[in-house]
């Protein structure tokens, strides 16, 4: 071990804080190096002097310290909201709300509250629509999942799946068709029926 490294380790050597390997190496070096031995005794004296000088044990915090701290803590506590929501709960809650909103938006892309009633009606089979009491003031909750189809999708499906031989009532009672119709405006719905009738040559 060189003198430079030994000097850096002297304080720990004196306090017996070095590992066994380093202790032996410093020990060996000091035995053979008078300059480092001298340095060691100087470090020892200096540390003792400084320790005495830096012993602030005679100094203490003022009696007002505790009172002042308690008062500041109370002020901080009073600034807190009535109940604290843990951060994890807040984050999970917000993520949950976002997820639900996203699902709703994806399933009901352009639905506004005023459109709700018409769209609900639109997804019901025709005979139910006819039988429906128009005096109902509030729409019923949709009883099945809404699926998004464009007018062209529906037209294509209807024209593909039903042949001119198909029974019109069967088409109109088709639950799948009912589901498809629910996203359309009344005018589009009428056009579908028209197209089906034309194909069926009704």
């Amino acid at each position, binding site marked *: 071990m060189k003198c430079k490294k030994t*000097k*850096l*380790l002297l*304080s*720990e050597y004196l306090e017996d*804080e070095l590992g066994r390997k380093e202790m032996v190496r410093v020990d060996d070096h000091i035995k053979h190096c008078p300059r480092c031995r001298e340095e060691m005794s*100087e*470090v020892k004296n*200096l*540390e003792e*002097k*400084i*320790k*005495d*000088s*830096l*012993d*602030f*044990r*005679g*100094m*203490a*915090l*003022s009696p007002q*310290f505790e009172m*002042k*701290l308690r008062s*500041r*803590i109370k002020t*901080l506590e009073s600034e807190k909201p009535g109940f604290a929501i843990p951060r994890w709960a807040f984050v999970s809650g917000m993520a949950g709300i976002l997820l639900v909103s996203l699902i709703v938006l994806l399933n009901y892309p352009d639905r506004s509250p005023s459109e709700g009633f018409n769209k609900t009606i639109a997804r019901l089979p025709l005979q139910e629509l006819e039988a429906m009491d128009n005096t109902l003031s509030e729409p019923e909750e949709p009883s099945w999942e809404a699926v998004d189809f464009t007018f062209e999708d529906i037209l294509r499906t209807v024209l593909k799946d039903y042949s001119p031989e198909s029974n019109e009532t069967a088409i109109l009672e088709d639950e799948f068709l009912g589901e498809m119709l629910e996203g359309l405006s009344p005018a589009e719905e009428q056009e579908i029926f028209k197209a089906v009738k034309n194909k069926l040559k009704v």
Partner: protein
Amino acid sequence: MDSEHNLIERAKAGDEGAYQKIVDNYKDQVFRLALGIVRNSQEAEDITQEVFIRVFKSLKSFQYRSLLKTWIFRITINIGKNFLKKRTDALPLEGVEIEDSKPSPLEGTEYREKLEEFMKAIGNLPFKQQTAAILRIQQGLEFKEIARIMKCTLGGARSHYFQALKKLRKSMV
């Protein structure tokens, strides 16, 4: 250590008694460390206040990446450094005040002279050397711990301390 973990968890959960126990456990060490840095009892007390306010505010985010003591000491050093920065702009370091001190074990002028001599010498050291010296000599910390507090390498902590000793030796001859 288990009991300190318990204490921290209770304080995190809002137990005032546990927080008070943390203050009681560390306030004197923090005050002495601050005193070593700013060499003014009033400022050291203000720093101690700020340290425990910071502990109160941030304890919930304490993740046990270090010992509580290491964390508290690091806060103390950072706040102390800020106090020094502000003060060097406005006030010279000469006005050392030790009037608030209680009777010391080494009563009399000899103690006071030694204290003042050291305080002046340490005040003239670069901040890192000063911090390493205080943590080593006053707080009796091992260099591993000093390195963690100062966020430097073990060799860096040893080197800062050794440089401090060299300069203090010259000034105290």
